[in-house]
Every structure is written in C-alpha cells, then in structure tokens.
C-alpha cells in the first residue's frame, strides 16, 4: 500500500451533491466526498457506473447538472461550478493534472515527447529553452522513460511509455491533485506493475493527491487509501480500501469483491 497521507484539517478537494444528467440519462447522482493532501482516492465500479462522468465533472471537462466542486486555493475553498470560465481554467491548469485511459488522447501526438512536457512548462511560465529541456529530461527519467527518446514522437512509444509520458506531462507544474481515468487498463500486467510502481513513488515523493477511477480492485488496493464504490450513477459504499475489500457490507460491493479472480 502507498504510504499514509499527512494529517491536514482542510481538504484539498470537496465534492458535494454532485449530479450529472445527460438529458434523462443519469450520469451520476448526489455524489459527495473529500480528498485530503497526499490521499489517493479510488472510484471503483463497473462500466457505466458513472465513475468517468464524476471524474470529468471534477476536472472541469463536463459541467455538472447540480452540486459543487470545491478546490482549496490560496483564496479559500472555491466552487468551480459557480466560478467564471477563466477562474475554472486557471485552477484546473495550476492545481490539477488529468490522465486519460487512452494516452494518445491525452498527448499531442504530432510533437515530440520532450515537446509534450516542454509545452506544459511553457504554459506554466518557463521561458528558457535550456532549462525546459533539462527539466523535461529529469521528468522522463522520473517516469522511467529513456531520456534518449526525448525527441521521438509519442506514436513511436509503447502504450505503457505513452501513459508514463502523459503522467509526466501532467506533473510538471506541480499540481496538488492528479485525476486519472483508468490509467492501467489496457496495459500488459508487467507494464501495469511498472506504472503502478511509478505512481506509488510519485505519490509518496511529491505528497500528491489522486482521484483514480478504476475497475481493477487489485490496483485500487495497491494504490488507494480510500475507495468509493459506484453503481449505476450512485455511490453505494465508501471506506478505507481494506475496509471495502475485506469487509464489504453493501450487496453490490460484496458482488464486486467476490467477482475478482485470484490467480
């Protein structure tokens, strides 16, 4: 398990009564949770449970139908759902990183690996080319990508490498919280193991918070401190990871936990 987070009174992120309807179709309903600094929260559930919808609402990529997404900023808790576009974009850009399941969607495939990282650094205010390149190399090493590949196109990278590049690009501006949508899905198990290891080290090294959407309970156990279980748009149970996985109380949670195959 990842190292325990530091104790802190103010949450970094607080979601209250969050709902999203697509017309009459329910995406997620009345979701509430908090994330503290250094905490890794897992949102688990099967396909169609609303996990990605929830994540996209938090990331400011979808406008919720109802509820609030509070971020702890220097000016206090700011509700993204009731703030100007400009402020929302600023908070998302400076406080969060977002990693999609399909790395190709989260990267600029027509510019080099170094460019993907460098662009984010420049957006954050860095100007000096030499400095940017140096930082990009450092980040590639941190996510275990061979620094010699800095000028290569992401299309020449394997899936696992693309995913790690996406993570690096999203960490360069020191976000407080990473939002990750199924980051390990679709990867081979050994590649998954490497990615998980990279994430674990980043979480403890940077005291990073994460909201991790996954349907893989083993990944949830390994990376997350707490879990929220979703089913058909509703949050059915929440608790510490070991509580949810070892002492599931709700019928759906029990079904989910018992369905996992153990090799």
């Amino acid at each position, binding site marked *: 398990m990842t190292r325990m987070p530091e104790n802190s009174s103010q949450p970094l992120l607080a979601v209250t009564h969050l709902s999203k309807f697509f017309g009459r179709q329910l995406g997620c309903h009345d979701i509430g949770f908090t994330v*503290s600094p250094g905490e890794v929260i897992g949102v688990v559930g099967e396909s169609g449970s609303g996990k990605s919808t929830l994540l996209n609402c938090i990331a400011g990529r979808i406008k919720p139908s109802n509820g609030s997404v509070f971020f702890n900023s220097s000016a206090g808790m700011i509700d993204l759902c009731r703030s100007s576009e400009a402020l929302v974009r600023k908070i998302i850009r400076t406080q969060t990183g977002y990693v999609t399941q399909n790395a190709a969607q989260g990267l600029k495939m027509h510019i080099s690996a170094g460019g993907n990282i460098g662009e984010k650094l420049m957006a954050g205010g860095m100007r000096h080319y030499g400095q940017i390149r140096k930082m990009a190399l450092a980040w590639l090493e941190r996510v275990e990508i061979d620094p010699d590949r800095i000028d290569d196109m992401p299309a020449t990278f394997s899936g696992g490498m693309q995913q790690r590049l996406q993570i690096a690009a999203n960490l360069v501006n020191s976000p407080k919280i990473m939002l990750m949508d199924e980051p390990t899905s679709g990867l081979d198990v050994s590649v998954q193991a490497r990615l998980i290891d990279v994430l674990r080290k980043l979480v403890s090294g940077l005291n990073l918070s994460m909201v991790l959407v996954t349907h893989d309970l083993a990944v949830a156990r390994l990376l997350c401190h707490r879990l929220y279980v979703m089913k058909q748009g509703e949050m059915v149970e929440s608790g510490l990871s070991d509580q949810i996985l070892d002492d599931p109380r709700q019928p759906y949670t029990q079904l989910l936990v018992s369905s996992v195959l153990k090799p």
Partner: protein
Amino acid sequence: MTRNWILKLENIEKDFVFHLQQGTRIVVFDGFSHLFFPGRASILTGPSGSGKSTLLRMIYGTYRTGGGHIWVRHRNRPKDIAAAAPAMIYTLRQDTIGYVSQFLRVVPRVSALDTVIEPLLARNMDLEKARKKGRALLERLNIPSTMWHLSATTFSGGEQQRINLARGFIAPFPILLLDEPTASLDLKNRRIVIELIKEALADNTCVIGVFHDPKDHRDFADHTINLAHMLNQEVMQSCPGKN
C-alpha cells in the same frame, strides 16, 4: 491498574451479512468487553470461526464495528477506532497499532528490503539508517543478502512470511497484533520470532496474538482469551509457566 490500559474494548458488536447467500447473518461479537495493558501478551484462542482474526481486524480498523467502542490510548489520549475518521486511522496505523497478517501482500518491483523498511520511512527515518536496520533484521530472520534487492514475488511462502514479519517488527508499536505469525515457519525461524515478540514485550508493547501452536506462546503469554464461548462472555485464564 484500570487507568493504565492501552486498549479497551467496550461492548463491541460485529456481524456479517452475506447478501450473496440469501442474506445469511453471522454474529461474531455481541457485547464483548476487555482491557489490554502495555507490556502484556494476550493470546486469542478458540476454534476456527470463533472470531480471533475478526477481533484483530476490528482493532486495526479493517473490519468495521457494528456497535460499541474500541478505545486506543494514542499519545496518551483515548481514540475510538470504531468511530475514527480516516485520517485518524492512518495515524493510528502508522504510530500506534502494528499488524502482522498471515500472508504478505506482495507488491511487484518493490525490493524485499524496501518492503521491510516502509514503516520506518513512514515515520520519516533517514533512508540509509532505515536500510541498515532492515538489513540487520533480514539477516536475523535468515533471509540471504542476495535476496534483499529482489521483490518478494518469487519467494517461498516461508520467506514471504519472514519479510512480512520483518516489516511488522521493524518499528516499535505500543500495540502489536499478530495473526498466526509463526505459521509456515520452521523451528529455527519460529524461535527467532518468539525472541522478537519477547523483545517487543520488554519494550512495553501490548501484544495480542493468534497462534496455531500453543507451544509458541508458552514462554511469554500472560493470559489467554477463549472466544469459543463468545456472545457476552469471556473465558480468561492466566498462563502457567510464564517467565
């Protein structure tokens, strides 16, 4: 004497409802109370299913309590695990309550040494100092140095359990929960674990353990708690033959 308890179970209740099995309900505890003290070893006994591991997991906060309180004296103030916020449970698990499970949960790619020293790093010990302690303990538990940098994924059951034990004993805890710590160990290594337990007790640790073999705890056990006659009763016996 009552003032000095370190762990206090107050009318704890626990049941399991198996929704996938027509809602079968099993009651494990129905108002159990008990005090535990620093430097004392309590052994939980009883047949399989009587609640021994369940009790350990409730104290650790893995199993949620249905009713009652589990008071832990944490930095001299009582905290109720049954009602604690996640942040408090993280703190309790880091500093006050240690738990050695029956099986190591192996993390791929993390070396045996780094697995063992994690509790020290969580307490902000210097990395090199922590590694030094880790190596010493691994050596004591007869894990060859050639294996220290390897992930425990390829280790035998007994070797994995010794990594698990090293991790459990490397940092001092006021309360230490042991779930079958000597299972899958040969006699030589069992003796070492017993030594480690005695050292913890001498360091004023409150030890609560489940042991498969009564011979393992005869040297240090202060009393046994028989959960076989659970449900509002406890059968406590003092242990003869303790040094």
